[in-house]
């Protein structure tokens, strides 16, 4: 493409977003004239979703939810790092202010971030972030080393990463204190698969995990 053609193409793809947005807004208004007025009043989502930035997994679309229903944080490889003020602020706001009932950490098979972390390569600015995934591997080194098929090993690391991030959510004071007081939120670990578009529940036993975690990380009192 020539420079001029590239610019024209970029302009069109950008225009398309605004056109689609207008069309969507009109459709919603036709279906329900009060739709936007209601949303304007505030949000009370039941769910907090912590997912991957990957463009192929728009949380609300793959769960069939509409605007107003799910509070969403997305980052590289759906990590919940203990010292990350960004994700910790999201968890804090969702639990203490919005009082969400469920927190879903959702990973996905074929995750580029997880793959990058398994590549013995200096990735510059991404190194510190992806090191958290290498740490997950180290925690489960024996199990992962025992899987001979590379694709299978990689899929398993995606799952173990989700479980570890659920643990990190449960380590926070916000979750432990809210659960003790209200009996929620409950933390879930899921994995999205591209092969069939379905979510797999890793069936985390929330209460058991909370109990184990509180042996060392108890911040409930």
């Amino acid at each position: 493409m020539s420079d001029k053609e590239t610019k024209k193409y970029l302009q069109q793809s950008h225009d398309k977003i605004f056109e689609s947005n207008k069309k969507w807004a009109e459709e919603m208004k036709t279906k329900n004239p009060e739709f936007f007025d209601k949303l304007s009043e505030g949000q009370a989502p039941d769910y907090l979703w912590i997912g991957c930035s990957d463009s192929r997994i728009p949380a609300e679309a793959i769960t069939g939810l509409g605007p107003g229903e799910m509070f969403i944080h997305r980052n590289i490889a759906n990590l919940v790092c203990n010292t990350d003020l960004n994700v910790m602020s999201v968890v804090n706001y969702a639990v203490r202010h919005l009082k969400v009932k469920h927190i879903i950490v959702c990973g996905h098979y074929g995750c580029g971030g997880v793959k990058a972390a398994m590549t013995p390569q200096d990735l510059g600015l991404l190194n510190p972030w992806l090191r958290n995934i290498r740490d997950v591997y180290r925690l489960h080194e024996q199990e992962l080393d025992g899987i001979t098929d590379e694709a299978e090993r990689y899929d398993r690391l995606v799952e173990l990463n989700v479980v570890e991030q659920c643990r990190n959510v449960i380590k926070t004071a916000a979750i432990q204190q809210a659960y003790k007081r209200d009996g929620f939120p409950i933390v879930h670990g899921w994995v999205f698969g591209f092969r069939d578009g379905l979510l797999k529940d890793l069936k985390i036993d929330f209460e058991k995990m909370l109990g184990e975690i509180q042996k060392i990380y108890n911040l409930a009192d």
Partner: protein
Amino acid sequence: MASYQDAIDRLVAGNRVYAQRTAERDPNAFSELSKGQAPEVLWIGCADSRVPETTICGCRPGDLFVHRNIANSVQGDDINAASVVEYAVTHLKVKKVVVCGHTKCGGAAASLGDADLGVMLNTWLHPIRELRRTHKSELDRLPDDDARALRVAELNVQQSLDVLKQHPAIKKAVNDRGLSLHGVIYDIGHGQLRLLDDAGVKKANGLWAAPN
């Protein structure tokens, strides 16, 4: 406890419908998606449940690489957002970076006052609260808090773009291949996106110049 589980059942059912409909419309949809992603746009938006980017833009899975946090704030010392930018710009080679603020933003509204939101949120919102101080006379002239919160939301988009412009991957991509940055505001009360015409570096590559 039953009702809590019902809320989860709802997501699982919604996902089944999504998977079925997608496969019905295009039997190859998932095998295509499983090959990889090549999104054109990095979307940095608010975690607010009322601004689901893919839905409001009428986009499809695969279109937008997404980072969402409290008040769509990009901060220089935040490794989370910086990693998203690095991956999207250097590895996926997105062509555009969009920062989207919105009306009725809880973060922007909270930044107008000094209420103690706990140490975590106070720290995260500090750069936005600073905007109130640095733009005090302009904000004081506005008629009410709704208008002030909206202006803070706009200034916050601008501030996030300013931080993004200093990201090494973005600097390089703007120079090497004409990556462009754009600021938008989503109006929750009308469901519409509005482009902030003074926000980006769009003039650098001719995009969004006056229509000819």
